[in-house]
């Protein structure tokens, strides 16, 4: 099972995990990662996620297929939201199912590392202090060198 979704809606992490394992007796391990919007000590009011429709889904699928090639997965889910996301809300989910835990953990980390660097999404921060010009260029989140380093592990 491979589930890829790019959506503006809040998703239900429990439902996604359940879809991977529910009723199966060959799955021994499910790893679920959920990334949430933080409020950065109260200074961030929202994240705005821009994406490249069409390519976003295609890129997630390419990353998923590469993970399936590298590890013996029994299922995986990748969900990425776009639009306005409030602190405390989920942004992204990755879930992997396998017979054993090593493959499920490795594949989940791989999916997240590549999603960060290769999937066409861009974050802009809405902060209280910049309310006068919430769409200023300074509000775009800069890519982190640590994300490239995380990808280079694989």
């Amino acid at each position, binding site marked *: 099972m491979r589930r890829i979704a790019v959506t503006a809606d809040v998703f239900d992490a429990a439902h996604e995990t359940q879809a991977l394992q529910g009723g199966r007796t060959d799955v021994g391990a499910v790893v679920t990662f959920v*990334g949430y919007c933080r409020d950065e000590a109260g200074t961030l009011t929202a994240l705005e*996620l*821009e*994406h*490249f429709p*069409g*390519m976003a889904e*295609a*890129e997630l699928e390419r990353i998923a297929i590469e993970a399936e090639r590298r590890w013996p997965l029994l299922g995986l889910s990748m969900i*990425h939201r776009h639009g306005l996301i409030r602190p405390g809300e989920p*942004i*992204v989910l990755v879930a992997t199912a396998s017979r054993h835990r090593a493959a499920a953990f490795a594949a989940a980390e791989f999916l*997240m590392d590549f*999603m*960060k*660097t*290769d*999937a*066409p*999404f*861009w*974050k*802009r921060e809405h902060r209280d202090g910049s309310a006068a010009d919430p*769409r200023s*260029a300074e509000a*775009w*989140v*800069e*890519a982190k060198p640590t*994300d490239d380093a995380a990808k280079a592990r694989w």
Partner: protein
Amino acid sequence: MKALYFAWVRERIGKGEEQLSPPSHVGTVGELIGWLSGRGDNYAYAFENASTIRAALDRTHARHDAPIAGVREVAFFPPMTGG
């Protein structure tokens, strides 16, 4: 050829998409960036640090030395920050 711009590349250029007809000597992604940069201050600003700009050809990541012949859609955007 259709061009798409995202995030601050889109904001600096001032539009999200347009049709491009680059001259025949523009053969690669990098050369297309160079040609676009000469079209006005907004393009020059968007591409001022050309090496940081990412490109996709027909929705697949492409390096700056990738040929653009036969490509229907090119997209330019900053390094990605999703996840």
